[in-house]
């Protein structure tokens, strides 16, 4: 296995027609790590992946694999495996020849090609489909062929471009577990692109959140989930309530804010002083309906199995999202509270 100790992206920039699709991505990937590039569509995450794969030339910056410069090499000489969003299976080749394609390109002896192809087929449990053409397989099976084709070469890095986005919800969960299991068994360094925060949180060792071609935050799933660095990351990490407010008082890292018809205590993210305009971020599951608290008017109630998702409006007319156990009726007045530790206050 042609492994590396560290892969370094140094100010990688890519322009399209004068606009930055990716503006200076610097990142060090350690061997065996699972990195997720996360962000909304158009944030530059696929651009970053294609730059890594060598499918897009860089406008600036460099990519280093240990001491070797990589960004000047064509894709076929980088030795990375890639799983494409639409799988990009060769439609005219049976599953087995799709998987063995890369091995044959390396001119490996026939016995070894057969042995490793068989191994990969077993790994993704497609032995009985080896002779079929990709068009005869279901979406999930095609996905597994694509993964087998990328990992059979034991590449030093596997790149995955939204590999689950074409699957239905149930299959997506199954394949997610499958990808994580493969990563655990094979230990392949992986860079995974997705717009689904849940997918990124559950798969990755480290996440890179991108927005408009810029890195917003890099951290472990827990760091991002609990301490988003700014309002954009918070928005992406499920802080559905981002309420415009004003700082009233500051005590150390705790701030009191009011506005939008609410008064709240929360944790300041960054330096704040009284009078600042801020956004208070609260997850719907951290905003509780109770006896005490700020009164809000229920507008929409959605049943979600174990709990109910409620959209309510404060006296100032701002929408807030919360969870409830008992079903309030639209038009009801309820009181909401939030634990100060669960409220993040971002400068706006």
């Amino acid at each position: 296995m042609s492994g590396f100790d560290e892969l370094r992206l140094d100010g990688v920039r890519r322009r399209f027609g004068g606009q930055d699709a990716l503006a200076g991505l610097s990142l060090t990937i350690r061997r065996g790590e699972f990195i997720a590039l996360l962000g909304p569509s158009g944030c530059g995450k696929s651009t970053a992946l294609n730059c890594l794969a060598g499918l897009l030339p860089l406008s600036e910056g460099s990519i280093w694999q240990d001491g070797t410069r990589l960004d000047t090499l064509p894709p076929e000489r980088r030795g990375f495996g890639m799983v494409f969003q639409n799988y990009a299976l060769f439609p005219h080749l049976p599953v087995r020849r799709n998987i063995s394609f890369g091995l044959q390109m390396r001119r490996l002896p026939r016995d070894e090609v057969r042995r490793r192809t068989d191994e990969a087929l077993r790994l993704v449990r497609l032995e009985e489909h080896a002779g079929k053409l990709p068009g005869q397989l279901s979406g999930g099976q095609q996905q597994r062929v694509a993964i087998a084709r990328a990992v059979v070469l034991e590449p030093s890095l596997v790149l995955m471009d939204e590999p689950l986005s074409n699957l239905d919800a149930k299959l997506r969960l199954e394949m997610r577990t499958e990808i994580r299991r493969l990563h655990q068994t094979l230990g392949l360094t992986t860079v995974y692109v997705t717009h689904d925060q849940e997918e990124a949180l559950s798969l990755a060792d480290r996440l890179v959140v991108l927005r408009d071609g810029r890195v917003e935050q890099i951290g472990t799933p827990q760091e991002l989930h609990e301490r988003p660095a700014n309002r954009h990351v918070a928005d992406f990490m499920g802080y559905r309530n981002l309420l415009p407010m004003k700082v009233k008082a500051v005590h150390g890292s705790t701030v009191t804010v009011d506005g939008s018809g609410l008064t709240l205590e929360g944790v300041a993210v960054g330096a704040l002083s009284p009078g600042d305009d801020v956004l208070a971020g609260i997850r719907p599951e951290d905003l509780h309906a109770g006896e005490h608290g700020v009164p809000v008017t229920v507008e929409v109630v959605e049943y979600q199995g174990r709990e109910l998702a409620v959209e309510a409006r404060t006296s100032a007319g701002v929408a807030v999202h919360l969870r409830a156990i008992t079903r309030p009726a639209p038009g009801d007045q309820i009181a909401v509270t939030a634990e100060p530790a669960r409220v993040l206050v971002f400068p706006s």
Partner: protein
Amino acid sequence: MTRVALRHRLAERGIDRQLWLLVPGLACVLALFVYPFAYGIGLSFQPAQGGVFGAYREFFTDAYQRDTIATTLGLSLPAAILNVAASVPIAYRMRGRFRGKRLLTTILVVPITLGTVLTAEGLLNYLGPAGWFNRFLMAVGLLDEPVRLTNNYWGVFFSLVITGFPFAFLLILSYLSGIDPTLERAAATLGAGWWQRFRRITLPLLAPGLATTFCLTFVLAFSVFPSAVLVGDPAGTTRVISIAAYHAAYEAYDYPLGSAIAVVMGVVELFVVAVVLGLRSLLYTGSTGGKG
């Protein structure tokens, strides 16, 4: 009650009032194609002498007539092969998006609009014994006397390439853009260089389209007539089968023989097309993943 049910049952099999829309087209096809075609076949079996197959016997026993098949194949097969073969690399290079693609495509396609007569005149002026081409080669001292490139096989061959290439190129370009470009990128990440990508991925997916393109350009070239007369040697090396049919029908006024030659022409074309399409059916002809 039963009438409604009958109408529904018919509609389920695709028989409804919309079928009347087919009538004008069908009438045209019958009146302008099927009837004259059947009439011509009928005529070919009614020669003035020699029985039912007299006209065909006359054609095949006369070496001067019979050899027109070989002459025409000798022109149209290489021309069709060259048109397809030359289009593939050019279309492959032009499959992506780049500045000036529309201009370049237009330039490559313009010969379609010229027509054979204009092409022939151009060829005579340019490649003829006193044309620019020969004068240039003699002026720089490469030649002592003009090389003959018109009024022989080569004149017709060039004319077929000039008029047939744009068809082949346009068809192949559209087949190529129907192949998903991520397939080649996938092959690249798997270690395939450009030649391997072309040979293992693009070419196999393109091959059925090449077969179809070959058939169309071959049929186009096989029915060559004006350029065989204008830039060829219509009494000798480029006496193609359509000239033979024309002579029989409009100079000897032997309509049955003319019809018989036309039928032979059709059969030869069908034979070549059937062979090529038969080979094509051995290839992968399913989806190529692109926008189609």
